[in-house]
Structures are given as structure tokens and as C-alpha cells.
């Protein structure tokens, strides 16, 4: 029961933060609140027995995403401009999507039901045989790296493509500028998995190119 109370408290905070993000016009505030939102969702994941997801969300979702957004904000205007536009279109679409989603969601089996279709397919097989076959206690690791290894391969391809895209997008106009590399020590300490290492590489590439841009701007101003 107490876990349900904690969950209700956490999701209430998530809803409040989401509404505050909607209402604020200061982008820095919105970014930091999104980080808090991610961190609270990580606490929620712990309560829902998804510990691996929780620490990935805390490190990657709350950590790296926030850092990336803040790094980009160094070159972007800090405030959202006020606008007067008819909001009736978005409200209608959101209402329709909301009705559809509520209809779909209430047709799901009750929360936590052990006989839900999700739990009667491959899940039990993973839990029953993963330890005896692969001797790794953590079933999530086993499924990620072994049973669904090709998924993970596809994921790394996606990350590679995205990293390449970021580098290509940001490297185009920094060819002439030369800037010192971003020191590694400035980067936040996160769980050093393979994925986060890749992210770090991308982020530092991005940071250094952002820095180069600044240097270039300065040079342009001087000459």
C-alpha cells in the first residue's frame, strides 16, 4: 500500500512538472524541470521493479539529455517569444487523441495482473531458462545481450547514425576554425556503460564544435 502512495506522489509531481514546463517561457527553467521530470520517472521505475531502466533513465535521460540541451542553449536564445495564435486546433487534436488513448488504456488488463497477455508470452520463458542457460542473474541483461541481441545491434546502428548526423550537421561550418579539445574532466560523471561512452564521444564532438563556433565568431568580430 505504501508503495502505491509513493507512486501516486511521484506521478503527481510528474504531472505538476509537465504543466510547469508547458507554462514557463524561460527555456533554461524548462530544461532543468525536464531533468527533474526524468529523475522522478527514474524513481518511479524503481518502484515498478525496473531497476535497470531506472539507472539508465537517471544517467542518460536525466543526465546526458539535460547536458545536451544546456550545451545547445549556449548558442540559442534563452527565452521563448510570446505568441498570439489560435490554440483551438491543437486542443481539438489533443482531446481526440486523449479520448482514443483512454479508451485503449481502460481496455488493458488491470495494473499488475499476473495473468495479463504480456506475462504469458516469452516473458516466463526468459525468466525460467535464462539463468540456467547463461548463468547471468540479471534477466534484463540476458535478454538485452543474448535473446534480443539483434535489437541491441540495431540500436547501436541508430546511435551511430544519429552521432554521424550530429557531427555532419555541426562540422560543416567549423572547417577553418581551430579550437582546443574539450577537456574530458568537465563532463558529468555517469555510469560508464558502452552506450554512455558513445554518447560522451558524441557530446564532446558537439561541444568542441560549439566551442569552435564561438572562436570563429570571435575571430570574425576581431577582423
Amino acid at each position, binding site marked *: 500500500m505504501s508503495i502505491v502512495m509513493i507512486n501516486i506522489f511521484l506521478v503527481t509531481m510528474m*504531472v505538476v512538472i509537465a504543466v510547469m514546463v*508547458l507554462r514557463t517561457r524561460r527555456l533554461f527553467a524548462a530544461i532543468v524541470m525536464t531533468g527533474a521530470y526524468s529523475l522522478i520517472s527514474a524513481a518511479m521505475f524503481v518502484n*515498478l521493479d525496473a531497476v535497470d531502466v531506472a539507472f*539508465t533513465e537517471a544517467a542518460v535521460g536525466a543526465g546526458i539529455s539535460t547536458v545536451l*540541451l544546456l550545451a545547445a542553449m549556449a548558442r540559442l536564445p534563452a527565452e521563448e517569444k510570446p505568441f498570439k495564435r489560435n490554440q483551438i486546433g491543437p486542443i481539438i487534436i*489533443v482531446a481526440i487523441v486523449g479520448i482514443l488513448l483512454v479508451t485503449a*488504456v481502460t481496455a488493458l488488463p488491470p495494473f499488475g495482473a*499476473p495473468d495479463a497477455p504480456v506475462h504469458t508470452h516469452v516473458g516466463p520463458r526468459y525468466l525460467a531458462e535464462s539463468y540456467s542457460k547463461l548463468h547471468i542473474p540479471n*534477466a534484463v541483461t540476458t535478454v538485452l545481450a543474448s535473446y534480443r541481441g539483434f535489437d541491441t545491434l540495431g540500436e547501436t546502428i541508430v546511435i551511430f547514425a*544519429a552521432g554521424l548526423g550530429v557531427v555532419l550537421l555541426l562540422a560543416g561550418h567549423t572547417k577553418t576554425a581551430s579550437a582546443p579539445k574539450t577537456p574530458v574532466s568537465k563532463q558529468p560523471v555517469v555510469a560508464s556503460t558502452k552506450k554512455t561512452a558513445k554518447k560522451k564521444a558524441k557530446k564532446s564532438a558537439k561541444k568542441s564544435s560549439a566551442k569552435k563556433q564561438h572562436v570563429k565568431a570571435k575571430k570574425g568580430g576581431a577582423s
Partner: protein
Amino acid sequence: MSSLIATHWNYLVVVALMLIGLYIVMSRQNLVKKLIGLAIFQTALFLLYISLGRISGGTAPIIDATKDYTYSNPLPHVLILTAIVVGVATTALGLALILRINDAFGTIEEDEILAAKDADRKAHGGDE
């Protein structure tokens, strides 16, 4: 109705979060704000999957062969681990695009960008 809330409250909150995220994406002009809305939508979706994987009375799927525990379903956890990392890749790519848009147009407000493009098109149409 109240029994439905008692058994499905988690999913209903997820829907509310998704709708807030969707509304931010659709109604706000600022591109960074749109990206943040997308992140909110995405995290709500993660919560939906993890909620689906939960079994009441269960525990985290880390196997202890000596004891007979109920474990939550590891499959949604794996899918969401992948989705979190892909989500950050999406954010990074979106931010890179926003930075280039800001370089090209000097603004990250959607309506101003569209107005600038329209003006540009008109100017070029006049030349030809």
C-alpha cells in the same frame, strides 16, 4: 468508474502526461520547447511500458535460483532500455538541427522561420 481508476490509475496518469507532451509539441512555436515536449511524451511512454511489465507482488527480474520469487516481466524493461538511448540520440540530432536552423534564420520560433521562408520565396520568385 471508480473501480476503473483504482485498477488503471497508472495508465490514466500516463495518458495525461502524454497529452501534456503532445500539446507542448503542437502548440508551442519554440523549437527547443517542442523538443522538450517530445521528451515528456517519450518518458510517459516509457512509464506505460514499465507499468505493463509489472506484476503485483513481484520483484526486479534478477534471478535468485535458490528462492522462489515472482519476477516482473523483463521484456518491457529491455525494450525501454533501447528506447531511452535512442531517445537521447533523437534529442541530440534535433538539437543539432535546431542549431543549424538558428544559424540560418537567426531564430528558433517556428512562425518566424516560416515567415522568413515565405519572404525568401517571394523575393526569388520576383527575380525569375
